[in-house]
């Protein structure tokens, strides 16, 4: 695709997205729309480490937690604006990702996944046992200020919609940049065969750490957004294993390592879960988790590379892989 058609496509998507709130004016659909973008954003953030670098993290809820708790505690204790807390949380998350990654990156496959899962569980236990500062298992409630944009609060949901759409595009931009840069190229090699990449001179820890840090930064920013949108956080929901697995499952179902894949996965899971809630109400709790399981098994069985590949096959578009070195150097 030429850059020009890509620009045109981008502008069309932006126009459609800015018109969406006009159609869905009732607060309930608006909330779902916001959550949809938030989950797609989370999935894309996970995708940077789990998809592009191929390191299947099952501990990403730790970064959501770090983002949400950092901004909330800074706000509740010292009245610092969550906008600033969001940046502080992102920095904390980047450090945490490197700290967790350093010992874990030497592990492969399932062992890496289990280590990250354990890291998130440890964080959850720490938060649950810190009653004074972090509110323990009950969580923290953010003081309602109504219309206070500087404190990241607003009664009109459009405020949150605009922010989440901006976040969504920023993570797409960064993903695109990574995919087309040398870093993405090296990460792809690591994903293909890490020992071979190492023998060619690639510094594995360095590139995995870069991917982990970028992924954690975006995830933590999403955590702050979630806290400000819902105005209530608790360790089970924010740092719990469920969220980590959901993020990974979205990407795996949609198609790891691509841009459209995680978005498709997020849309499929969020919409199906909401429909279930809508029609089943409070009955049959856990049905959505079962549904995730069924979708996951079906996709892994028939198209392990995700729904994205199926759709691409359907449209039968021939997309060439692009190398960062391609421009004029290779032929």
């Amino acid at each position, binding site marked *: 695709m030429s850059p020009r058609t890509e620009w045109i496509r981008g502008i069309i998507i932006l126009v459609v997205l800015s018109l969406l709130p006009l159609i869905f004016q009732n607060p309930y659909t608006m909330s779902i729309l916001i959550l949809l973008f938030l989950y797609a954003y989370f999935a894309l953030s996970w995708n940077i480490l789990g998809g592009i670098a191929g390191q299947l993290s099952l501990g990403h809820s730790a970064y959501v937690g770090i983002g949400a708790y950092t901004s909330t505690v800074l706000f509740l204790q010292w009245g610092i604006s969550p906008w600033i807390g969001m940046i502080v949380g992102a920095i904390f998350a980047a450090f945490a990702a490197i700290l967790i990654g350093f010992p874990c990156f030497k592990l492969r496959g399932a062992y890496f996944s289990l280590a990250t899962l354990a890291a998130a569980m440890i964080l959850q236990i720490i938060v649950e046992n810190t009653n004074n500062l972090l509110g323990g298992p009950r969580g923290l409630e953010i003081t309602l200020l109504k219309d206070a944009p500087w404190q990241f609060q607003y009664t009109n949901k459009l405020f949150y919609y605009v922010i989440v759409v901006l976040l969504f595009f920023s993570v797409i931009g960064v993903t695109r940049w990574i995919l087309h840069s040398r870093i993405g*190229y090296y990460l792809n090699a690591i994903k*293909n065969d890490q*020992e*071979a990449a190492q*023998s060619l*001179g690639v510094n594995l820890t360095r590139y995995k750490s870069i991917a982990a840090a970028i992924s954690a930064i975006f995830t933590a920013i999403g955590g702050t957004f979630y806290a400000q949108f819902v105005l209530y956080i608790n360790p089970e929901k924010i740092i719990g294993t469920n969220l980590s697995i959901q993020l990974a499952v979205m990407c795996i179902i949609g198609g790891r390592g691509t841009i459209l894949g995680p978005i498709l996965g997020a849309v499929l899971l969020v919409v199906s879960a909401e429909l279930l809630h809508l029609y089943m109400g409070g009955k049959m709790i856990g049905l959505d988790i079962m549904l995730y399981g069924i979708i996951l098994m079906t996709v892994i069985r028939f198209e392990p590379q995700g729904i994205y590949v199926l759709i691409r096959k359907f449209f039968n578009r021939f997309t060439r*892989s692009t*190398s960062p*070195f391609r421009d004029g150097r*290779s032929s």
Partner: protein
Amino acid sequence: MSRLSRPTWVKNIMSLLSVNDVNVYYGDVHILHDVSISVGEKEIVSIVGGNGTGKTTLMKTLSGLLRTKTGSIIFQGQEIHHLLPYEITRQGISQVMEGRRLFPFMTVEDNLWMGAYPLNDREQIQRNFANVLHLFPILGKRKSQMAKSFSGGEQQMLAIGRALMASPRLLILDEPSLGLAPVSVSLIFDTLQQINAKGVTILLVEQDVKKSLSIASRGYVIEHGRIVMEGPGQQLLSDPHLKETYLGI
């Protein structure tokens, strides 16, 4: 030709690579016992031996994937046995690993560019790319194809091409003939001689004793983690012990 009693590195101080009394362990298991080899500038040196004699262990030690317990490895006058794999590659040692180890879901072209990782000079990379395509025209014809779609022989060419992209001074190959059709093996060995003629030193580890010793200027025989013989390739080939053990004559 001599049966080894003492390491020979002392007299080879001018060599490009010298491995001196190296001992390597997997946990508690002693794999390499006082291994000493030397590779001179622009030589083809072949290390031969059967399965499980420590050939691949030696290769992994040279590339920094395994650590020596005692002994030293000196490349161009510098100790490299304490360096990390990516630092060793930057010194000018490229390795073609056993089983090729390509990036299966990357194109031929991307696999090759990946080999140029240690280089920063774009013009140099471009020159290397042209040289590799000249050496293996088939890679140029099919450069946008995925590496996994290649046959064994083609994959080996790609693996060698990828290693050459880093402009190595020393090219190490671990079992390049493994699992290839005889015609491909001959082609690979011919190419290795061409590469050597251009000034690249080659260290070859092989089970195909006959072929590898016939192109080697010198050879070593490794048994149970020890170097038991060394000498010019042709002389080794006529050694009665070697003939009996490896060639079945």
